[in-house]
């Protein structure tokens, strides 16, 4: 009898162990293969700078209210409020202690493309690796090279203040399993080079969908409503729909959009508002062809109500 129960318990334990192992396998941090980063060569700094502006790094990683050249000091510290608690943006300046001065390309690449931190831990998706994952290893090498040319800052950002269970990083594995996907957000029947470039910029480094697409209760993007707008994840108000179905910007032409990205003026010459103020300042650094590609993409995505 005791033997039989022992067998049952043993079998049960085995099933649980297999389940735990499977869950761990599906949700463990998943860095890029190490050879991804071998022999990448010298970064193209000009290309890295363009990715830096397209990625809007300054929006979160520069000190609040920074102007002029200060915006290139990636000191971190900005508080991002969310329904899950407050995230403090880390220092990504080249400072060896406070920043990422001693990080390897592989460590930086795993953060950007896989949401995996330097200690092999899951990173919170307040850092939009969910979009950046669409960048290539070459992009990462160039961007990393450019970031190293920026001024170092010794600022140490406070740790995140998150409520249970969101303070448990291990749970992020489950979140990634459900919501982390580096595939295209929109499938186009045919996409010319310009449209492909726009898709890369918007869905990848530009991470436009992180704010302009509504989220579910767990913070996952509701991808069926791609770029449909929704409540502001960082606080008051709403983020506008930017698809052709938008009541506010649906009627803007591609050249209206380009002009808005370059100058911050809407077609009726009001000024850009809200979080988009910082985004626009970053976009203004991009070449006109890239802004035209973004505009073309925004006109080609499915209209949302």
């Amino acid at each position, binding site marked *: 009898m005791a033997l039989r129960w022992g067998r049952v318990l043993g079998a049960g334990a085995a099933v649980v162990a297999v389940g735990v192992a499977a869950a761990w396998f599906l949700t463990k941090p998943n860095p890029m293969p190490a050879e991804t980063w071998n022999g990448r060569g010298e970064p193209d700094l000009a290309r890295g700078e363009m990715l830096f502006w397209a990625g809007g790094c300054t929006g979160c990683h520069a000190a609040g209210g920074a102007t002029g050249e200060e915006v290139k000091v990636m000191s971190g510290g900005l508080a991002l409020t969310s329904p899950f608690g407050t995230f403090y943006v880390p220092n990504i300046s080249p400072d060896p202690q406070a920043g990422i001065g001693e990080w390897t390309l592989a460590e930086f690449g795993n953060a950007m493309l896989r949401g995996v931190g330097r200690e092999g831990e899951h990173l919170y998706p307040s850092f939009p690796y969910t979009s950046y994952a669409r960048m290539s290893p070459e992009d990462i090498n160039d961007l990393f090279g450019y970031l190293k040319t920026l001024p170092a800052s010794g600022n140490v950002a406070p740790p995140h203040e998150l409520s249970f269970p969101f303070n448990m990083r291990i749970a992020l594995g489950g979140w990634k399993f459900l919501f982390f996907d580096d595939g295209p957000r929109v499938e186009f029947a045919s996409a010319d080079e310009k449209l492909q470039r726009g898709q890369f910029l918007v869905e990848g480094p530009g991470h436009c969908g992180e704010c302009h697409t509504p989220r579910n209760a767990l913070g996952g993007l509701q991808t069926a409503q791609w770029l449909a707008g929704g409540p502001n994840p960082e606080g008051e*108000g*709403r983020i506008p729909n930017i698809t052709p179905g938008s009541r506010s910007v649906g009627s803007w032409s591609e*050249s209206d959009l380009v*002009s808005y990205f*370059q*100058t*911050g*003026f809407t077609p*009726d*010459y*009001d*000024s*850009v*508002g*809200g979080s988009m*103020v910082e985004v*626009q*300042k970053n976009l*203004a650094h991009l070449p006109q062809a890239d802004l035209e590609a973004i505009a073309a993409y925004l006109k080609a995505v499915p209209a949302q109500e």
Partner: protein
Amino acid sequence: MRSMSLLAAAAAACLCLSTPAFSQEEPQVVRQNLMKEIGRSVGALGAIAKGEKPYDAAVVEQSLTTISTNIQAFPDQFPPGSEEGHETEALPAIWEKPDEFRAGAEKLHTEAQALLASMPADQAGVGAAMQRLGPVCSDCHETFRAKKQ
């Protein structure tokens, strides 16, 4: 220089007075009209920058002058008691941080003066001017003007 800007201010005041829709000279209305004129001037520059209108040095100069003149008069139109009414979009921050508010207006004045001094010479130059003006507008609006919803 001083008499020039006085003259321009007087001209702007005349323009305001000549519009019949005004309820006397309520500061809320005066400042709204100063800003509307700035908006129209930016619009004239924008039309050139976008190639909707041909480059016209006179239009560029006049537009930049209006921006410069009006923004200089603008911070004086917020006396106590004008915090509300006439659908004002003025935020309390204007009265809470008057120095920062004035500095914001001064920044646009300086920028417009610098552009007048170098005078954008073609469509691309006007486009570059718009790129310099835009962030100055949005920075100040973010802090001192009510959000539009």
